[in-house]
Structure formats: structure tokens, C-alpha cells
């Protein structure tokens, strides 16, 4: 045959093949997780409190609160022992206490089964809410590495690894990103171009470290909380209060004369000053408080919803509930992934907005 025309066969590009492959693998993975989760949930139709007899009713609120609040040990799951009792399986964490000028450090499994811990003249006990008190009534300062602190340290380690490796990869290849930097660079540019520059203006460089830290720290901690057995770190009001406090400090230490002028001498008739000045002063504090409550409530509510949907299986005590419940949980988890990123974005955006407002320059035209 002198000439055979090339058949018009569809040869997909390697990129398209890659994405089809990823899509198919994701479908298989999701199906596997779904089935595995159903099987896992069906193995334990009841989940009573540790050490109690199986016939007791499932305490949904107690279980949910236990997962949402902080603990001195990292509880993973419960196991039914040879004696038929339910034993919790958890990772003990260091307890650090300061009492009467003495620093005591020990592991949290010292408090197992309600025992008290003694060292020297000090004897500590932990009540069912996890508060540690001295049996002699002395004041105790609790600096323990709790579940939230351990989760935060894990997030810190992850962030350090990701960003130092990312930054180093630029040196080796003449200013081009390699590896993890390829993922991180668009995000950093997003924070710079869509959050920092539009809101802060030409002085944005000074505030980029804080905005980048806030964005990635909140995002990674939100994601770690969504992993099963993860800690509800950003759903802790003290954590979000600290983050909002940083925004408060940075905003008000950057305040120009114009900014404070608008707070204490707003452009309103003089007789409105007794109303406007308290309102403006409350506004200075209320904006970071709103940041705090927004992040806390969004993340905690998300965790409570997921836990409630899983608890449905145990409340109904039926195997048939498991696929339904896990379908809901899968759907809500996807929304929570979006919320994790969105809340980090909103926190960073509003912080940048407040900083930008504080950097207000005097108006060039005198209009009053």
C-alpha cells in the first residue's frame, strides 16, 4: 500500500490521561471510604461511656462535647476489653503544673481510673471536666500540653517544613519553584494580590508576614481538625481570641493620626459627639471580637454537625442507618473543607481591611 492515511484516533494528552486517572482513583477511593466507614460503624452499634455496662443509652451530647472540647490526653477510640468493659485507647500527653512555686511535669496517664498524683508535698486530682486541682486547695497553674496544644505544634511543624522547603527550592533552580513551592506560590501570590494590595495599598509589604501566617496557620489548623481523631483547635475560643488580639494590636499600632482623628473627632455635628465617640471606641474593639466569634463558631458548628450526623447511627442503633448517615457526613465534610479555606480567607481579608483602614492618609481636599 503506497499510502495509508492516518486514522483519526483520539490520542489523549498525558495531562488529560492524568486527570482522568485521578478522577477514577478518587471515585474508587471515595467508594472505599464509604463502604469501610459503613462497616466500621456497624461493628459497634452502641458507644457507651468508658467502663460502663453496654446496656446504657448513648449519650450523644456528652460524646460530641468530648470531641469538641480540649483534653489532657489524645483520645483515639474505645476498645472492648476481655472483661467486657469499654476501655478508651488514647495517647497520654505531658501535664505541666505550676503550684507553690514548683513546676511538676508528668504524663496524663497518672490520672487514669481517677487516681490522684503525688509529688513531694503536692497532690493533684483531675475532675471529670478535666480541671486539675490541688487536694490541699492551693492554686494550680495549668501549662499542660493538651490535645489542642499538641495539634498546634503539629501544624507548626508542618508549616515550617512546607515553607522552608518551598523557599529553599528557589535557590537551587534560579528563582523557579520546585516541588511543594509549586503548590504554595499561587497561594502566596493570591494573598499578596487579592488580599494585601487591594486593602492595604503600597505599604503592604510590612504586613505580608502577618497576613500570610494568619492565612496558612488558620487553614492548616482547620484542615487538621477535620481529620477523624483530630483536635478542634481553631474551634477553641481562646485560640481565636489570640488571633483576633494580634489583629487588634497590629491594626491599632499602625493607626495614623487621621485614623485616630476619625475615632475621637468624627466628622459629625458637635452635639453627636457623646454618642459617636463611644460608638467609635466600641467599634475599635468590636471588629476583632467579630473576627474571633466568626472563626470559632464556624469551625465548632461544623464539627458538631459532623459528630451529630455520625451519632445518628448510635442513637438509632441500626445498621441500616450507617450508609445514610455517612452519605450526609461525606456531603457535610465537603462543605467543611470549603469552610476551612473560606474562614481562613475571610479572617485574613478582614484583618487586611482593618489594617488598611488604620493606614488612612489625610484627605487631599478640605471638604469640611
Amino acid at each position: 500500500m503506497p499510502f495509508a492515511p492516518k486514522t483519526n484516533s483520539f490520542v489523549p494528552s498525558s495531562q488529560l490521561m492524568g486527570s482522568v486517572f485521578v478522577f477514577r482513583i478518587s471515585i474508587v477511593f471515595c467508594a472505599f471510604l464509604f463502604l469501610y466507614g459503613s462497616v466500621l460503624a456497624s461493628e459497634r452499634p452502641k458507644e457507651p461511656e468508658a467502663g460502663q455496662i453496654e446496656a446504657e443509652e448513648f449519650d450523644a451530647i456528652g460524646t460530641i462535647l468530648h470531641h469538641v472540647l480540649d483534653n489532657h490526653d489524645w483520645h483515639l477510640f474505645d476498645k472492648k476489653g476481655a472483661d467486657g468493659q469499654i476501655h478508651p485507647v488514647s495517647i497520654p500527653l505531658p501535664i505541666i503544673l505550676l503550684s507553690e512555686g514548683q513546676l511538676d511535669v508528668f504524663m496524663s496517664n497518672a490520672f487514669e481510673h481517677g487516681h490522684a498524683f503525688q509529688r513531694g508535698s503536692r497532690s493533684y486530682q483531675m475532675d471529670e471536666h478535666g480541671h486539675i486541682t490541688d487536694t490541699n486547695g492551693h492554686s494550680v497553674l495549668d501549662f499542660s500540653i493538651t490535645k489542642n496544644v499538641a495539634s498546634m505544634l503539629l501544624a507548626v511543624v508542618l508549616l515550617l517544613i512546607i515553607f522552608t522547603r518551598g523557599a529553599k527550592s528557589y535557590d537551587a533552580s534560579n528563582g523557579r519553584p520546585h516541588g511543594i513551592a509549586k503548590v504554595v506560590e499561587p497561594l502566596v501570590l493570591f494573598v499578596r494580590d487579592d488580599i494585601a494590595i487591594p486593602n492595604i495599598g503600597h505599604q503592604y509589604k510590612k504586613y505580608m508576614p502577618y497576613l500570610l501566617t494568619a492565612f496558612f496557620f488558620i487553614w492548616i489548623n482547620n484542615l487538621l481538625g477535620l481529620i477523624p481523631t483530630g483536635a478542634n483547635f481553631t474551634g477553641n475560643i481562646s485560640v481565636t481570641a489570640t488571633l483576633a488580639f494580634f489583629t487588634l494590636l497590629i491594626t491599632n499600632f499602625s493607626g495614623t493620626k487621621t485614623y485616630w482623628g476619625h475615632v475621637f473627632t468624627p466628622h459629625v455635628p458637635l452635639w453627636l459627639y457623646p454618642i459617636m465617640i463611644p460608638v467609635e471606641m466600641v467599634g475599635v474593639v468590636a471588629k476583632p471580637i467579630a473576627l474571633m466569634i466568626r472563626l470559632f463558631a464556624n469551625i465548632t458548628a461544623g464539627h458538631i454537625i459532623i459528630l451529630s450526623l455520625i451519632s445518628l447511627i448510635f442513637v438509632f442503633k441500626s445498621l441500616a442507618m450507617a450508609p445514610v448517615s455517612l452519605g450526609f457526613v461525606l456531603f457535610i465534610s465537603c462543605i467543611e473543607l470549603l469552610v476551612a479555606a473560606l474562614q481562613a480567607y475571610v479572617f485574613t481579608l478582614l484583618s487586611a481591611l482593618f489594617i488598611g483602614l488604620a493606614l488612612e492618609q489625610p484627605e487631599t481636599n478640605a471638604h469640611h
Partner: protein
Amino acid sequence: MTTLPGIAAIGAGLAVLGAGIGIGRIGASALEAIARQPEAAGKIQTVMIIAAALVEGAALFAVVVSLLVAG
């Protein structure tokens, strides 16, 4: 009062009602705006997300108050 957690639950439900209406209206106006001017879709989407997060923050204030009352 023993029915306080029940009333707190009703309060939380009303708060979610407000959030639903608010975010629904934001979404509707965003859709309308994008339909009018498709090339501005990126900017409109950004503003929509910000406004939705703020409205949701306000609703979650009420949820937090309900939790405080009920817990």
C-alpha cells in the same frame, strides 16, 4: 427555667432563618449581576463570598448565644 434549652433551640433556628434569607438574597443578586455582565464574574464572586461570610458570622453570633444559654 427547665425549658430554657428548648427556647434556645428555637432561637438558634430563627437565627439560621435569617442567615438563609440573607445568603439567599446575596446569591440571587450575584447571579443576576453575573447574568448581566459575565466578564465581571470573578469580582462578583469574590464580593459574594465576602458578604456571605459576614452574614453567616452575624447568624453565628446568635448560635453562640443559644449555645451559651442551653449549655
